[in-house]
């Protein structure tokens, strides 16, 4: 199981890990009320505000993908309020990016509003924040989308 090609730190740790036989087992079970929630509001200034809450992981993405597909089809200038999103993985990024590309293709745009620091870190590391604007307040969102 342990090959000579692996770095030393990895080999030592694997030997230790396997020698412990994984003694501690932790109960496996679903957490309740883990599903993402969302709302979509058409604002008077012509923007659509999408508010997301929860974890944008695989489970969340399965729920939210059709929502983003609908947004891309029906809306034009979109603010996605990320302030209650606690987790963001690549499938969530994918949903946002695919939707943003579809909006851009028809002359629309999308901005991300007020992500939590851990989520903003994912946006930065993935490079998404360099192609989709991330703003701290609605005023900044309006400046980008309405001018």
């Amino acid at each position, binding site marked *: *199981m*342990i*090959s000579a*090609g*692996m*770095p030393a*730190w*990895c080999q030592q*740790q*694997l030997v*230790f*890990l396997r020698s*412990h036989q*994984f*003694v*501690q*087992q*932790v*109960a*496996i*079970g*679903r*957490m309740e009320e*883990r599903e993402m929630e969302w709302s979509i509001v058409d604002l008077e200034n012509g923007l659509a505000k999408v508010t997301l809450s929860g*974890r944008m*992981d*695989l*489970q969340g993405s*399965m729920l939210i993908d059709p929502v983003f597909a609908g947004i891309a089809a029906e809306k034009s200038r979109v603010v996605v309020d990320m302030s209650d999103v606690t*987790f963001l*993985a*690549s*499938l969530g*990024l*994918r949903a946002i*990016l*695919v939707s*943003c*590309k579809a909006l*851009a*293709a028809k002359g629309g745009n999308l901005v991300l509003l007020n992500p939590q620091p*851990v989520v903003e870190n*994912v946006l930065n*590391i*993935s*490079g*998404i924040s*360099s*192609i*989709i604007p991330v703003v701290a307040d609605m005023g900044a969102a309006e400046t980008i989308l309405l001018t």
Partner: protein
Amino acid sequence: MGSDWSCSAVFPGTVSGVVDAACWIERLSADRGIPEGLSFGIQLCVEELLTNVVRHGGGAWLENAEMPAAAAPGVSISIGIMRSDDVIILVIEDDGTPFDITAAPAKPVHRRVEEAQPGGLGIQLVRSFSSGLAYDRTGGLNSTTLRFLWPRTAFALL
């Protein structure tokens, strides 16, 4: 060290298995008092690597297709995690299609949304959030090992 521990669990290589694994690692992180930033990184890497197994490791999960309930039937994924001093080691093993994350190409950087492609984001996140990454394939198993460093705080000196 009294603070050392190790845990493991096995999950089916299905969407439902990934969801269960995400719950398990989230709860384990809380129970073990893993600091928020580190916990986020570990959860993210588990999510990305398991999603990868289900999507590409033997299933029929096509780009832009609806996600099937069981994408990679027959594939199983084991997760081991241990703390030793200020290091956390995460080992993820699966019997799916060979995939060496350390050899996967880097994602090109784009500046315009029209050019950006959604693929490869997960690999980039795993590389960034872990402080060490190794891959081995032996006996028909992919074995991906990640290292994380426990953040040093004033409490660690007491």
